[in-house]
């Protein structure tokens, strides 16, 4: 090989390297755009699968009021208006607002619920009791503490109160089961008062819930009726109306 050919060969190789160097980032970018981004976690993947399509996705937008943290560090909540194509069916409507609540506000610091938590199911009973079944992340990722757990539940109940007028009580399940506490403090064996003046449910409005209701998702009549707090209108008494006598034995849970 003559020196002249050698120079040509080296020159051509150098040009090829330069062209490759310029084209490689463009190729990498196109590849990234073409590949679907995997979800950050299993919970997020499940959320994508279980997320309900808005019933009125083409319908008019309604201003929903969602309650996230005010940021004041005192456990207070702040209503935020979000435009959503809300369904008229209370069950679907509740799913829409709760899924939006779980998705979180623009400022992640104002979240009240863990980002990985998923609403697995939501039912409405004829007496106005709503049953919300969340994934385990709600229990495992909510910061432990009375204030933080109370704020999480308050954000759910207040959001339901304002946006779904048919909900009177709320029962929270974790993965289809009744659990003792949310994250070690707040009692989840009880139902929470959402709206003492809830609108009555009609047979038409009860339709739209998850079709297959798991047995565990239905609270016992004892829980639903006796563990429910009385409406706030009940007059306070210094001593109870019924005399405290004896205590039954504690129920041992398996």
């Amino acid at each position, binding site marked *: 090989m003559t020196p002249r050919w050698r120079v040509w060969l080296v020159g051509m190789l150098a040009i090829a390297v330069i062209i490759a160097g310029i084209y490689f980032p463009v190729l990498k970018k196109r590849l990234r755009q073409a590949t679907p981004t995997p979800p950050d976690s299993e919970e997020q993947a499940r959320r994508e699968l279980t997320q309900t399509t808005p019933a009125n996705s083409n319908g008019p937008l309604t201003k929903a009021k969602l309650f996230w943290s005010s940021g004041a560090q005192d456990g207070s909540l702040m209503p935020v208006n979000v435009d959503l194509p809300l369904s008229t069916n209370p069950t679907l409507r509740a799913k829409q607002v709760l899924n939006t609540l779980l998705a979180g506000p623009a400022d992640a610091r104002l979240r009240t619920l863990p980002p990985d938590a998923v609403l697995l199911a939501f039912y409405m009973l004829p007496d106005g009791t709503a049953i919300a079944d969340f994934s385990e992340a709600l229990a495992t990722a909510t910061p432990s503490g009375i204030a*933080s757990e109370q704020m999480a539940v308050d954000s759910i109940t207040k959001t339901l109160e304002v946006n779904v007028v048919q909900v009177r009580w709320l029962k929270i399940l974790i993965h289809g089961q009744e659990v003792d506490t949310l994250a070690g403090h707040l009692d989840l064996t009880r139902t929470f008062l959402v709206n003492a003046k809830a609108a009555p449910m009609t047979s038409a409005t009860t339709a739209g819930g998850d079709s297959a209701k798991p047995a565990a998702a239905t609270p016992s009549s004892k829980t639903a009726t006796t563990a429910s707090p009385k409406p706030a209108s009940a007059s306070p008494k210094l001593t*109870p109306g*019924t*005399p405290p*006598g004896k205590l039954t034995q504690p*129920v041992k849970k398996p």
Partner: protein
Amino acid sequence: MRNKASDSLQGNIGINAFVGLGSIRLALACVLPVVLIGGHALSLGTARAPQGSNQPSMAQSAPPPSTSGQAAPGTPPGGPSAQRQTPSIVVLDPAHGGTDLGARGTGGVRESEIVLQFAAQVRASLESMAFQVMQTRQGNENPSFDDRSAIANSQRGAVFVSLHIASTGLPGTVHVYVMSDLPGANDANGLIPWDRAQAPFVPLSRRFGDMVQVFLAQRFKGSPSTAQAAAVRQLRTTAAPAIAVEISRISVEDRNELDRMVPGVADAIARGASAFRPLYVVAAANPGDRP
């Protein structure tokens, strides 16, 4: 001022017992005499409460707690009586323990450990005010919610204080929580369900919580002035005036910030308990009953 509900129950005679047999436990109201016999606890006592009621009651409307730390001036109506006494037992509950670490802060700080430190100081402050203190745990064990409640439920006239460190909240503040409203229906046999043992005590707990919160608010700026209601699991099964005290917060950068709060929290709780003591009247024990 006497309470109408209390007055309407004058003349009631209470029969109360506490029965424990292995894992089977039947606790009958702890506001009246209890006798322990061997490994089994059994008691039957009749007592006429000072105001004729076998219910926990307040002696009178509570005066605002004094800042001096002395018991609020509140002699029960009718003056001292052999049939009434004010409680002197405080059941202290350092929350969590064992495998349950509670809230965790930066640098490996654990709620289950810090609450023990707080409990030791609170205990010392209470004992200095002539309270008898019982703890639900001394070390790194984790009794169940029911086991913790049972300690208070087996005492006549005890008050219950559960100690917590929050994950969130304004650092340097302290919140007192009392059980939110709980229906108190007895079952067909006249028994109070264990899982709603707090129901008859909610008004007393609220008063107790408010008193402790006032003293805490004086010491820790930014703390609320009254106790807040929350569905705290530990309080639900406790048949006594019961509060949960939550200190903010575990994730402070400097652990010393929490340590500096210990004496103030202890003193405020002791003062609150002392101010509440004359307002909580329970029936006196019968001669021969367990002290």
